C-alpha cells in the first residue's frame, strides 16, 4: 500500500516566506530609520511593484495584454481628488473608495474590450484609456485640461505634521505594494489560479473540463482594475496635483511597468519584484544620462527578451529548478510497509 500526500511548499519557499515577512517588518519601520528621500524612493518602488504585479497577473497569467491600465491609474487619481475635494472624504478613506468605483466602471469596459482578442484587445484598452483622459479633461469641476491641486487644508486634516503625512503615504504605498504581491500569490494558489494556469495552456481543454473562462477573466480584470485605481489614487495623493496628461500617461503607468515585468519575468510572481528593483537600480545610476538612459533600458529589454523570454527570473528558476513563491502541487508518495 502507498499513501499520497499533496504539498504546496518547499523548504526554500518557507525560508523565502519568513525572509519576506522579516523584510516587510523592517520596511514598515522605515519612517523610524530612513531619511525622507529614502522613504519617498521606497514608496515609489512599492507603487511600481504594485503596478507591475497587477499587470503581470493580467497579461502574464490571464492572457489579457492590456496597454491601457493607465485608464485606472488616472481614474483612481481623479476619484481621490473628487471624493476629497467635493465630498469631503478623508484622503486615505478615498483610496479604497476609488478602488470600488473603478471596479464598477471596469465591468462595462470589460464588456466592450473582451469582444477583442490579442493585439486588438491591446489597442482597444489603449483607446479606452484615451477616452478616459478626454472625458476627465472635459470636467471643469476637476480643472479640465489643466488639472487641479489638492488644497493644503485637506492634507492638514489627514495629519498635522509633514513628517506624519509622509509616513502615512509611505505606509499606504507599502501596503499596496506588499498587498498586491500577496494578493497575486494567494489568488494563484487558489482554484482561480489553477484555472488561470489551465486557460494559459489550453482554452479548449479548460472549457471541456468545466472552467467558465469568461467569468474568471472578468473577475481578474475587475480585481486588477480596482487595485490599479487604488494605486493611482495614492500616486496623486502624494503628488498633490493631477492633470489629464499626467494621470493617463501611457509611458509612466504602462510602458515602464511592462518593461519591469518583461525583464523580471512575465508569468512568474517573482519576476515583477526583480524587474521593479532592477529598474530602480538602473534609474538611480543612469537617470543623469537623459535620453541615453532610455535607450539603454530599451536595449536591455530586447537583449533579455531574446536570451530569455521568461525574463531574468525565468532564466534563474529554469537553471536551478527553484521557485520562491510556489503555486503548484507536489504529490509525495509514502510507501506504507505495515
Amino acid at each position, binding site marked *: 500500500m502507498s499513501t499520497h500526500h499533496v504539498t504546496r511548499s518547499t523548504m526554500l519557499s518557507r525560508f523565502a516566506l519568513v525572509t519576506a515577512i522579516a523584510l516587510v517588518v523592517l520596511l514598515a519601520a522605515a519612517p523610524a530609520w530612513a531619511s525622507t528621500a529614502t522613504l519617498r524612493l521606497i514608496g515609489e518602488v512599492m507603487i511600481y511593484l504594485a503596478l507591475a504585479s497587477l499587470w503581470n497577473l493580467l497579461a502574464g497569467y490571464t492572457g489579457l495584454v492590456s496597454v491601457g491600465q493607465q485608464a485606472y491609474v488616472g481614474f483612481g487619481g481623479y476619484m481621490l481628488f473628487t471624493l476629497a475635494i467635493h465630498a469631503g472624504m478623508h484622503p486615505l478613506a478615498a483610496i479604497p473608495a476609488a478602488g470600488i468605483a473603478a471596479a464598477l466602471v471596469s465591468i462595462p469596459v470589460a464588456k466592450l474590450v473582451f469582444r477583442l482578442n490579442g493585439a486588438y484587445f491591446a489597442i482597444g484598452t489603449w483607446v479606452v484609456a484615451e477616452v478616459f483622459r478626454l472625458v476627465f479633461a472635459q470636467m471643469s469641476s476637476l480643472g479640465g485640461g489643466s488639472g487641479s491641486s489638492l488644497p493644503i487644508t485637506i492634507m492638514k486634516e489627514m495629519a498635522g505634521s509633514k513628517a506624519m503625512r509622509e509616513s502615512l503615504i509611505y505606509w499606504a504605498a507599502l501596503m499596496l505594494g506588499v498587498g498586491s504581491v500577496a494578493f497575486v500569490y494567494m489568488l494563484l494558489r487558489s482554484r482561480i489560479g489553477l484555472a488561470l494556469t489551465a486557460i494559459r495552456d*489550453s482554452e*479548449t481543454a479548460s*472549457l471541456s473540463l468545466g472552467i467558465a473562462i469568461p467569468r474568471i477573466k472578468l473577475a481578474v480584470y475587475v480585481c486588477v482594475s480596482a487595485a490599479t485605481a487604488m494605486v493611482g489614487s495614492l500616486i496623486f495623493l502624494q503628488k498633490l496635483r493631477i492633470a489629464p496628461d499626467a494621470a493617463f500617461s501611457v509611458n509612466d503607468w504602462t510602458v515602464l511597468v511592462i518593461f519591469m515585468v518583461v525583464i523580471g519575468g512575465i508569468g512568474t510572481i517573482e519576476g515583477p519584484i526583480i524587474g521593479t528593483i532592477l529598474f530602480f537600480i538602473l534609474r538611480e545610476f543612469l537617470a543623469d544620462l537623459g535620453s541615453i538612459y532610455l535607450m539603454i533600458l530599451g536595449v536591455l529589454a530586447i537583449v533579455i527578451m531574446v536570451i530569455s523570454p521568461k525574463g531574468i527570473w525565468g532564466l534563474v528558476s529554469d537553471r536551478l529548478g527553484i521557485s520562491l513563491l510556489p503555486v503548484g502541487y507536489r504529490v509525495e508518495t509514502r510507501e506504507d510497509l505495515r
Partner: protein
Amino acid sequence: MGYAAHGIITMLLLDSLSKRYGALVVTDSFSFEVAQGEFVGILGPNGAGKTTLFNLIAGTVKPDTGTITFQSRDITREGAAARCRSGISRSFQIPHPFVGMTVFENVLVGATFGRKAEGSVDYAMQALELSGLSKKANQLAGSLPLLGRKRLELARALATEPRLLLLDEIAGGLTESECHELLDVLRQVHASGVTIVWIEHVVRALLSVAQRLVVVNFGKKIADGAPDKVMDSSEVKSVYLGEDALV
C-alpha cells in the same frame, strides 16, 4: 421507438442534428439515443464526422439545426463548461494537455471544476491511480510522450466525475498488454455506473467492451445495433471493405 417504452432511462438524445462547414456537411440530420449505463462503440472511416459528433455533444461546436437532450434537459444552447459540470466529459483525439502543469495538476483541474463535490485533491489522485499515471504525478505534462498524453486525457475526463464519458480514439498505438489494461479500466468505470460512448479504430478492442455499435459515414448513421449484427451488415462491409467485397 425510443427507450422510454421499454422502461429504460435515456441519458442522451440527439434529434436530427446537422452541422455544415460551408458546402461540407459534417453531420447530416443525425439522430441517436444512448440509454443510461450503456456502452456504445462508434465506428467509421476517417473524416466520417465522428469527432464532430463529440464536439456537438460536448458543446465545443454548436449545431446548425436539431436538438441535444441530456438527462431530459435540452442543452443545445449550453456551453462546453456547463455541460461538463452537468456530467458530460470527453477526451480529445488529439490530446490537449496543460503542458506547463504537472500531470497531477492537469487532473486536479478536472476534479476541481468539472464536479460539484468537495475533496478535489483526493478525487484527482483516484483518477490518476485508476488510469495508471500516479507514478508520473509530478512530471510536467508537456514532457509526456503521446501515449502518456492519451492516458492523461482519460484521467482528466474521469476526474470530472462524469455520468456520460465520451472517449475519442484512446487505444491507438497501444501494445497488447497496454490495451488489456485500458480495457480493464474502462470496464471498471462502466461498472461504476458511467455511461460510455467510445470512438475507436481498434475494432477488436471496441468489440470486446461495446454493447452496441453505431457506424457513421459522411455524417450519417448507417448502422446501429448489436455489434455482431452491425459488423455483418452489408452496408458496413461496403464502407470498410469496398463494394467489391459484397459480390
